[in-house]
């Protein structure tokens, strides 16, 4: 059974019983049912942040596209908070807490992995959006006293990332490459 996602307007809703939750750009989701999969496709410069809560076995994922929500003048941070690092991580944590991941947010209970943040072959600073996403994500995590225990970031690799609830490792794939684990 999936937990009902409270913020209906900006969460992906899937039929109960579907074991794979697809997390689109700017979406987030979490599950504590062993065997469920959280998956996000082709990250490019986007970054997937995967947060595990140890005592409940809940795993959450958010697909961050941009570092900072202040650029949006149309209230995107409200309709799709997962889109930005500064709103996505707090929203995912809040959502996980609503699923029973209670207690103070600390390294002893929460562990974080990140993947993505790629770029094209470029020297242009403003196009290093992947790197800037990673930087912003690490800053936000730091404000919670968290830091990623594993990261597969950068390079010119568009990563597809998935994790099965109950397992430790994240699967990473990319066209014309063998799958690897994180």
């Amino acid at each position, binding site marked *: 059974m999936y937990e009902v996602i409270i913020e209906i307007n900006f969460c992906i809703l899937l039929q109960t019983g579907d074991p794979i939750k697809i997390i689109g750009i700017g979406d987030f989701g979490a599950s504590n049912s062993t065997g469920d999969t959280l998956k996000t496709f082709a990250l490019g410069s986007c970054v997937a942040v995967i947060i595990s809560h140890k005592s409940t076995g809940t795993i959450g994922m958010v697909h961050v596209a941009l570092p900072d929500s202040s650029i949006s*003048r149309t209230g995107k941070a409200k309709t799709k908070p997962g889109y930005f690092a500064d709103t996505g991580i707090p929203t995912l944590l809040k959502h996980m807490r609503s699923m029973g991941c209670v207690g103070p947010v600390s390294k002893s209970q929460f562990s974080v992995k990140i993947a993505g943040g790629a770029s094209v072959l470029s020297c242009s600073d403003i196009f290093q*959006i992947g790197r800037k996403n990673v930087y912003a994500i690490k800053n936000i995590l730091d404000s919670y006293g968290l830091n990623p225990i594993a990261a597969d970031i950068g390079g*010119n690799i568009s990563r597809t990332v998935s994790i099965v609830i109950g397992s430790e490792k994240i699967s990473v794939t990319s066209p014309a490459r063998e799958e690897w684990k994180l």
Partner: protein
Amino acid sequence: MEVMKNPKETARKILNAVKTVPVLSSSAGRILQIIDSSNPSIAALVNIIRNDSPLTANILKAANSAFYGLRSEVSSIDQAVPLIGIDEVVRIALRSGVSDVFEKELTGYKGVAGEFWKHDLRAAIASHKIASYGRIYISPEIAFTGGLLHDIGKAIVSSYLGDVSKKIVEAIDRGVVKDFHEAEKRLLGVDHAMVGFEVARHWNLPEILQNIIRYHHTPSEAPEMFKPIVYCVHLGDILAMMAGYGTGSDTLYYPLDDRYSDFIDLSEDELHLLILEIDEKFEQVNY
């Protein structure tokens, strides 16, 4: 890197294959000529569409889609065209007017079905939006059309890549070859931009579209008069790949030419906002 036995011979075969590509539907061809005119008129588009009943049906269908939320049905092409706009007309005309080229699964690039069209559409939307940041005027409609067509050469090159894209990726990672564009040239004797240019000539596309296709990975080599729009589509292509909309194994393995800033004036905040807007627009039209 393993280089195919004879790149020259392969290039000859590929360029010969261009001649077998089905021609563009006559209405799609005429629509592109109109887009290229200095002042594309809705009336002229309407006249072409009217004589092509499958296209008329598709355009009416789009105008009556839920997206426009109209209470009464749009039954005439005169109403439908201004409602959906020029980009939508181009999108619909090209998707149905180039037989099933965009539907092709780019197996040589390890692409999956549907990916090619999504990449092109994403690049088209991005190019349209980037056009408004041109230091001089860049036609958003031509930028959109160029974005849709820029990778058309991949539809042919894909079949000749066989199983080597994995080796190309490894070679780029090891620094043996600098990018995918270079790898295609070395392996096949010709790259997808050049093959696309040949397709564009075969289709008699306006010169500006031929140049966008030919130079989208090497914009600095484009003739001076076309540089602003070539750089515009160059960036549109890159933004599509950065958003994860590529065509398979070559995604992101292309260089960004920083000299774009001679033609496009884009601040960091504007770029972020642009990415957001491209995402929103893509959600609307990707059906």
